[in-house]
């Protein structure tokens, strides 16, 4: 009869159990397992600690060898080693110690699990699903069920503060929970990866990198766009990627833009990123923002009137992280002043937080940035040419003047070549409509905004 190595050791154990006393069996052979079976007829048994190793080697070896030989006569030799023993659990936490530490702050950095780098606060339960991220969420669930086999690599992209980090860390945490630490996970930010590579080069220890990143089952890398242009890191990542991918290890990557839009990324990496599943996270709609605010409030165990929640949800549209910041501010006001806030004050807080940057932008900066982006002359945008090459930039200009600067339609028309205000309305509505359907347009507009903010 042929056994798999695990079955072989299991059946040997059940025979050994009959021959030695129960305390002895539990003490010495509990948590033992077969680590390796070589073709040469050698097997390696892992035991829980050095005491067990000494004991089994000296007292039970003959017995074990006979039993194993009976089960499988190709075995010629048995070796023992100590496996990373399950560390003793510390379940007894006295009530007293909890009492003492009310309000005692802890080092916040230590909450991160040092082995996987995951922060436990990111869970799937606290991730709010809506139309803007349901594809990414569904793919995540499929990955958790089928690690490494379903969508590999999994590439998530979307603007800042929309929950990419939350989702990819939550996948990690969920995998850890479901598979009870049987799957090794590593979460790193791109910066950390680059630093590791730089350190390894400096200390001439490239094998450290290989050990660290190639012996895991799930690799999660955040903000991969920063790897573009860092030659050596890119190369190292490329090889790591190949090794993991070949061995069906799951790779999860996040970025603020799709692979095709990362400048200076090598073609070979780009095509690999696109080879699995790419899902985007876009801006949440009103109902979803409401749900997010309510969940955040219940996490903080705080309350706000519905009216205020609606105000926040309708004003803060683009960035969920900002919602958190604004909520904190509002709650702080509420606690220190001790009264319910009127929506006017809330609006003030919000506009102080998010419109800070916009005030500095001038219409000319917007026009210049767009002209630069599309490689046309600023004059082309305001003249009356109807060539397709300048039509799109012109419409985007009008859209952004309205959206970022809140200019009136007549003013916009006036600024862009003395046009009628209806032209401006048409342009604004057209782009606003298109942006929801056309991902590449959305991406372009995000990039333009970045450029504008950088220039001022």
């Amino acid at each position, binding site marked *: 009869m042929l056994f798999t190595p695990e079955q072989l050791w299991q059946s040997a154990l059940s025979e050994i159990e009959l021959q030695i006393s*129960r*305390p*002895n069996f*539990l*003490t010495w052979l509990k948590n033992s397992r077969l680590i390796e079976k070589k073709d040469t007829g050698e097997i390696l048994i892992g035991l829980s*600690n*050095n*005491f*067990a*190793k*000494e*004991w089994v080697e*000296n007292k039970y070896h003959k017995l074990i060898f006979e039993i194993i030989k009976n089960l499988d006569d190709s075995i010629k030799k048995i070796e023992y080693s*100590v496996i*990373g*023993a399950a*560390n*003793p*659990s*510390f*379940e007894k*936490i006295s009530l007293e*110690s909890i*009492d*003492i*530490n*009310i*309000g*005692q*702050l*802890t*080092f916040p*950095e*230590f909450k*991160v699990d*040092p*082995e996987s780098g995951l922060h436990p606060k990111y869970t799937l339960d606290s991730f709010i699903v809506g139309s803007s991220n349901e594809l990414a969420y569904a793919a995540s669930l499929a990955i958790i069920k089928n690690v490494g086999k379903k969508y590999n690599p999994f590439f998530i992209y979307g603007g800042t503060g929309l929950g990419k980090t939350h989702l990819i860390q939550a996948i990690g945490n969920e995998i850890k929970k479901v598979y009870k630490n049987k799957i090794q996970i590593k979460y790193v930010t791109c910066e950390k990866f680059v630093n590791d590579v730089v350190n390894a080069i400096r200390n001439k220890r490239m094998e450290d990198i290989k050990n660290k990143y190639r012996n895991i089952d799930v690799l999660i890398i955040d903000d991969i766009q920063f790897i573009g242009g860092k030659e050596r890191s890119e190369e190292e990542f490329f090889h790591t990627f190949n090794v993991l991918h070949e061995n069906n290890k799951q790779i999860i990557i996040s970025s603020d833009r799709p692979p095709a839009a990362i400048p200076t990324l090598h073609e070979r990496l780009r095509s690999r990123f696109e080879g699995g599943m790419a899902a985007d996270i876009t801006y949440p709609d009103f109902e979803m923002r409401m749900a997010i605010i309510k969940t955040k409030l219940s996490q903080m165990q705080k309350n706000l009137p519905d009216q205020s929640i609606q105000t926040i949800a309708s004003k803060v549209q683009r960035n969920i992280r900002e919602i958190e910041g604004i909520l904190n501010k509002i709650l702080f006001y509420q606690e220190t002043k001790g009264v319910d806030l009127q929506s006017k004050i809330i609006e003030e807080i919000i506009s102080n937080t998010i419109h800070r940057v916009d005030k500095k932008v001038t219409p000319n900066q917007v026009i210049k940035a767009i002209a630069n982006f599309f490689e046309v002359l600023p004059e082309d945008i305001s003249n009356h040419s109807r060539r397709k090459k300048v039509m799109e930039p012109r419409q985007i200009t009008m859209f952004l003047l309205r959206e970022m600067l809140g200019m009136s339609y007549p003013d916009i028309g006036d600024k862009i070549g003395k046009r009628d205000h209806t032209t401006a309305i048409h342009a604004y509505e057209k782009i606003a409509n298109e942006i929801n359907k056309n991902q590449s347009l959305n991406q372009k507009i995000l990039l333009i905004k970045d450029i504008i903010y950088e220039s001022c």
Partner: protein
Amino acid sequence: MKFIVLKKNLKDGLRAIERITDQNSNLPILKNFLIESFDNKIKISATNLELAVTSYISGKIIENGSLTIPLHFFNSIINNLQTEKINLESENEKLTIKTDNYQAEIKGIKKDEFPIIPKIENEKFYLEINNSILKNSLSSIVNSTTNENKPELNGVLFDYQDTLIKLAATDTFRLSEKTIFNTQYNSNIEKKFKTIIPTKTIQEVIRGLQFEENNNTSIFFDQNQILFKNESIEIISRLINGEFPDYSQIIPKKFETEITLNNNELVNAVKLASVFSDRLNEVKIIIKENAKNIEVYSAGSNLGENKYLIPAKISGSPMEIIFNWRYLLDGIKNLTSENIFLGINNNNKPALLKASEEISWFYILMPIKS
């Protein structure tokens, strides 16, 4: 086995191993300890399968042999004997204790049943360090460990670098770090490494080194074990699997307020404050604008309040911050220098405590939320 031993020597030996036996194990023999006599030495050992302690006792050996005996039972007999000399003799599985006017026979179990104490794979590479330096270094950080649910924090980080060793421990509320420089030890270990030594092992080492301040101890490592060895004692223990948190990022580099003050005064102030502090153990440190002293304040809702002024050199902004006085005292009591440096940032960032003239030790403490 047959030998004569002085009661004092026997008791010292037993003290080194008495906490190791495992009273709740599946395996009853772990309640026992092993006595062996050979080569003019008496050797006693105990283990709980995580660590094993072996202690050597001097005595007059008449016959070589060995036996295991229930430790607590044996201990209570020895503790109550009045005479100086004790005769011990074993036959089959029985041990006879005999003095001038007393005789007892106790049942033991033969040595074959006792766990075999593991050895270190390779004893070629080791480091040697003076007992009192080792003991003081370990004592200065062991308070900060925790036995809560995180195995990697239930131990002390041993970070062996090129020219120094760093020891660190934390329970996530506070962290202490001690540096031992290579002028204080000899070592032929060339490779840098990091490992975590269980708290219980550290405590046993500290206890075991208590009486022999001037001798040296050698420390050996293999992949998953550590061995402390000197003339009178050997402690071998498993190491903890896991990664100690990277704490370099939490060490504050700048402070909003820096205070230098007298060690004894601060100890006094904190102790007095502790009298008033209630269940939450809070003590508040208040630094006023342009003050020449700091105020240590505490209040208990049913007791009243008190404050203690300590003259101090202060630079930086005024500040009010609350600490758990136990944690604060745990830190201060490791300092022997006359003056202490305390650096504070704000109500939710870690504070740093160290000697003002010395750099080998520091303590980081998180405040209590106000």
